[in-house]
């Protein structure tokens, strides 16, 4: 697939919006429709769009972390959210809540959602990037026109 100017310009606008929206969905999830899973999918599709516009190499660079590290830390965070109640004498997986000054309620379920979010982003991106490594021509390649996508 060739680098597309339209797609690249659109991606530059859309990707930050999508990431923002994915975080919004995740945070909204506790009381209304949304949650870590759906938020993670939207977040992953933002990076997938970026990869389609600029190539997976640039998309990997934009993510900073390896998607597999995201997966591991996601499960880790979810596990920690389940373990936290043990330290205060509550049963495993009990949802604990605290109200911050200003009326913001925070609890272990949001931590669990963050874990799910990271896991879904990581897992989806592992699959998508793997498609590129397997030679599926879904993503633009570097040096196809002699330039790297990022130098445009």
């Amino acid at each position, binding site marked *: 697939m060739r680098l597309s100017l339209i797609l690249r310009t659109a991606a530059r606008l859309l990707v930050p919006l999508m990431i923002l929206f994915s975080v919004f969905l995740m945070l909204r999830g506790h009381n209304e429709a949304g949650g870590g899973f759906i938020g993670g999918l939207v977040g992953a599709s933002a990076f997938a769009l970026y990869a389609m516009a600029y190539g997976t190499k640039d998309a990997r660079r934009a993510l900073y972390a390896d998607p*597999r*590290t995201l*997966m*591991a*830390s996601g*499960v*880790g965070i979810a*596990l920690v959210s*389940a*373990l936290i109640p*043990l330290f205060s004498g*509550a*049963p*495993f*997986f*009990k*949802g604990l809540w605290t109200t911050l000054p200003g009326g913001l309620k925070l609890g272990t379920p949001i931590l669990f959602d963050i874990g799910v979010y990271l896991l879904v982003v990581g897992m989806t991106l592992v699959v998508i990037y793997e498609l590129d490594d397997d030679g599926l021509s879904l993503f633009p390649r570097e040096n196809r026109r002699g330039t790297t996508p990022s130098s445009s």
Partner: protein
Amino acid sequence: MDADLLLILPLVLPLAAAVLALLFRNVPRVQAGINLISMSGVLAASLGLLAIINEQGIQAFASGGWPAPFGIVLVADYLSVIMLIVSAIIGVAVAVYAIPNIDTERVHFGFYPFMNLLMLGINGSFLTGDLFNLYVWFEVMLISSFVLIVLGNTEDQLAGAVKYVMINLVSSLFFLTGAGLVYGTAGTLNMAELSLVLNEVESSGLVTIISMMFLISFGIKAALFPLFFWLPASYHTPPAAVSAFFAGLLTKVGVYAMIRVFTLLFTQDIGYTHTTMLMWVAGLTMVTGVLGAAAQNDFRRVLSFHIVSQIGYMIMGLAIYTPLALIGAVFYIIHHIIVKANLFLVSGVAQRLGGSFSLKKLKGLYAHHPGLAILFLIPAFSLAGFPPLSGFWAKLVLAKAGIEAGAYGIVAVAIAVGLFTMFSMTKIWVKAFLPGSSEPGAASENGTPERTPMTMGTRLMYVPIAALAAVTIMISVFAGPVFDLAERSANELSDSSAYIEAVLGHEEPAADPYTRLDLDRRSGGVHAR
């Protein structure tokens, strides 16, 4: 230690280990260490749990603080904890064995994280007290095992995995449908409450139909006749460490689930479900498995068919459904997991030393590696039921239970199948370990191949094999205490009141007005249709 903590450790440890192993994905040694620590930790926690159950009876834990019929409970009775301990023993053995057996490429693709996720699924299945949660754990287990079975991407692995995946998805479908029907009929999925409610459902025919859906679903997982063909098609394809873990544990989770639901939930129509269906299935499973094995010429395919035939013995215990028969079934599971996993581990070493899994190519291992030959003989004779090894005691108990219950036919089948098992083990012994006949080829003058040098890795592979052989001998020598343990477990299984009380407390939920009303309405509706 706190009982609740011990109950969740077999789940938390493998999950934490999977996370850590994924984070250290570029450092195979650290991963191997994490894996070993996690498996040993699960073993220690399970032993601790056994001690607590010995003192205080069945342990139940409501996760998240939600009380029993509403939240998900984890329950550890004798059967659960026995399964936990035995599978953790296999986990530790395979953790050691995998270090030399699993190549770096497979480690790089996530062997250790998925091994731990598989352990998580297995332990979860043993501990959960909720029917739908059991389904979820089955899925965790299946997805991890799908990955492990294709890891390495060889052609026969993919061919085996396709069959494995397809048939197991069918099994999941039956399980899910069955669980849906149970919820529609009884209005709960908590197994203890179901045990009370299902016995009061008016339309017991519907319950019997549901029980048959579970028989199909768990029958596929446990590789029962006629749904076993995926097992010999796939188990011989992954590396020996993986196939030993699968052979020891995965089908036995199916057997465990079957024992659980056919002692706790579906005891309304024993004459049909147990004495007819399970009995026939058990007999046919034994016979087809052992006959299938006779036709095979691959070390691990022979063993795979024997898993099928041995599963028949466990189901035979469940089918006879007397306390003694249940003791036999539990004893058989304990004995079988250790022995079968060990035989697969031996096959891996034989492959390393002899260069092949094929019995046509292997020969004369005894001449240069008498130690391996002896380590093969212990589990092999035990599997065939040679006195005084563990398999003999297991079969003796089952045969006695069968005769007491008047089920002479199945006892005759069991004994005949035992003889055929002997034949298969002898075949492996003669072909792989004794010098071959004067065939042209790799063999030298007297039919004995060149000695393959022992590497450090091969020596390390001997350690878990010797340890498991020692466990088999322990079970044989101390058959009394193991029998006691199996007896306590069988008592709990035949009288589920202790289980129900541990989960639900002293109240009787079926007497609850809302449940009663709900139940009448629902079963009435079914009748009207």
